[in-house]
């Protein structure tokens, strides 16, 4: 395995509302290596997206990064100036968002949107940016790319729009691609095409990928390693194969049980009862304890540490499976 490209260390991001503080991300640590695809999985509201926005320091107000370090190529992003961050965004670290149509400025053509980053970061002329934009559209598998350059986002299908987003993200050959639920709005067949595309691009360009999803099926198909998040904390992490095969955290287990299994229609799906805790009012102990069937008094008494188990895995549970 190569060295760490991105290292997130004890990240805390909180939203300070009038009367309460929403603790969206609470001491999250993980790493992405060069050429590695890391998945962050969990229910909605687990703080996955906020964690990712924190990396680019794009957390919307009133959110604030309270604590932690985000090391990228060895330098802490949290101490960089806004100007340095702008240099980084879209160039070395780029991002793909969940809802492609709403993430593309409707008033600009696809060509202009892709070319924008090239003109900004690479100093390309308009003409050259357009040529490069066409190449990028071809790279992400859009047929007849030259004609598509003059289309507006709403004139493309959802899958095409997401490919355009990816083309924008790839335009300056980033070292790290962050993708926030990029396939949820898409049909399953298109979803698979996009996953294959990302894998193929990773192999070709050697970038690191951070892929956020609430779908463990996507994680299984795409990722090398997985981080399971719940209520702003990491519950478990490790390589995808072993985590999904032998989950150690009860939450991971329940997530896997909630998945439909191909070829076993008779098996009933197991939804997780209860709701995630209110992020403005988190419990003292394990946040999953109220919904956990194996929880004992100790679980709710004090904070549960994330324990590394030596085989590249870590789990935040007092009574792990295995």
């Amino acid at each position, binding site marked *: 395995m190569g060295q760490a490209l991105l290292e997130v260390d004890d990240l805390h991001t909180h939203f300070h509302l009038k009367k309460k503080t929403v603790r969206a991300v609470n001491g999250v640590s993980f790493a992405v290596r060069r050429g590695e695809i890391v998945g962050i999985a969990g229910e909605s509201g687990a703080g996955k997206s906020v964690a990712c926005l924190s990396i680019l320091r794009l957390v*919307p107000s009133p959110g604030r990064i309270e604590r932690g370090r985000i090391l990228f190529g060895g330098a802490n992003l949290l101490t960089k100036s806004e100007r340095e961050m702008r240099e980084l*965004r*879209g160039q070395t670290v780029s991002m793909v*968002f969940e809802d492609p149509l*709403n993430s593309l*400025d*409707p*008033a600009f053509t696809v060509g202009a949107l892709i070319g924008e*980053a090239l003109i900004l970061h690479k100093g390309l002329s308009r003409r050259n940016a357009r040529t490069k934009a066409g190449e990028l559209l071809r790279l992400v598998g859009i047929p007849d790319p030259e004609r598509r350059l003059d289309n507006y986002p*709403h004139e493309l299908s959802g899958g095409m729009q997401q490919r355009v987003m990816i083309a924008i993200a790839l335009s300056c050959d980033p070292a790290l691609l962050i993708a926030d639920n990029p396939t949820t709005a898409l049909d399953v067949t298109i979803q698979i095409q996009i996953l294959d595309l990302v894998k193929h691009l990773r192999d070709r360009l050697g970038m690191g990928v951070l892929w956020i999803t609430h779908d463990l099926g996507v994680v299984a198909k795409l990722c090398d390693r997985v981080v399971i998040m719940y209520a702003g904390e990491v519950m478990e992490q490790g390589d995808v194969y072993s985590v999904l095969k032998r989950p150690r955290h009860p939450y991971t287990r329940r997530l896997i049980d909630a998945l439909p299994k191909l070829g076993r229609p008779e098996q009933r799906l197991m939804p997780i009862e209860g709701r995630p805790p209110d992020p403005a009012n988190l419990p003292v102990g394990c946040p999953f304890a109220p919904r956990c069937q194996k929880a004992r008094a100790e679980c709710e008494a004090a904070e549960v540490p994330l324990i590394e188990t030596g085989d590249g895995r870590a789990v935040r549970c007092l009574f792990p499976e295995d």
Partner: protein
Amino acid sequence: MLRYLFYRVASIVPVLLGVSVVVFLMMKLVPGDPAEAILGPAASTEKIEMLRRSLGLDRPFYVQYFRWLWKVLQGDFGMSIAVNVPVATLVWPKFWNTVLLTLGSLAICVIVGLGVGVVSGTRQYSWFDRISMSLTLVVANTPAFWLGLILMVVFALRLGWFPATGMYSMRAAEPTVSDLLHHMVLPAITTAAVSAAIIARLVRSSFLEVIRKHYITALRAKGLSERDIVLRHGMKNAMPPIINIVGLQVGYLMGGALFTEVVFSWPGIGLQIYSSIVARDLPVVQAAVLVTTFVFVLVNLGTDVVVAALDPRIRRA
């Protein structure tokens, strides 16, 4: 786009016809007989009857209407009762004076409204935002005639910076542009005030809406500076509603100019309407209202077309 254009242009024809009917009927609402009004109470019955016939007043309503419309379409608005000249020769020069005033105030509206709105919209809850939004709330509710009086007291009577009334200086040998502009400052500000305040508030809110859009975050993630985001992407997206409201305000300016013209004795169509009402010279009122409304409808049409042309969803259709 062509289909849209055709549809939109075609749709104003019935509206304009309706407007002409309303304007025509409005004059029929007048209590009393026009022939009597023209000739005065001392006129004999035969004379009144003759005038009625020559004016076509003895014919059925719709005949009167179509005769009137036919003449209007040829630019003939009849004779003024008060000064006994063709209405058209009275109204047109006044109309252009009002156009000048409207353009002047429109310029103020757009510059002030857009400037204040954009700055407020990108710095929500800053001191500038708070002060300018309180101020626009007050100004938006200030009667133009009152504001005109106050400006006149302060800047014309007390400070003497600007002339109090008229379009050109009496002493000047011939009208010059700089003299005109000097006279226009106070009336234009008076006319523009309410609209500028409304535009500023609207620009602010449409900017706030755009700036909260998801794609703005995506643009930040691309590495764009806040300035690029506001000026390139914010402007382009906020533009259609802004153009819309500016177009609507043109009509408001043309209507509101009436009060300004009365206060500052600006020889425009509003002052003409006012003095014609006082003189009961109704054909002039009729013509002035018709012309102004016609222009208003055309301006709205133009606005809609521009907004449509800016929207790629309509342009490509």
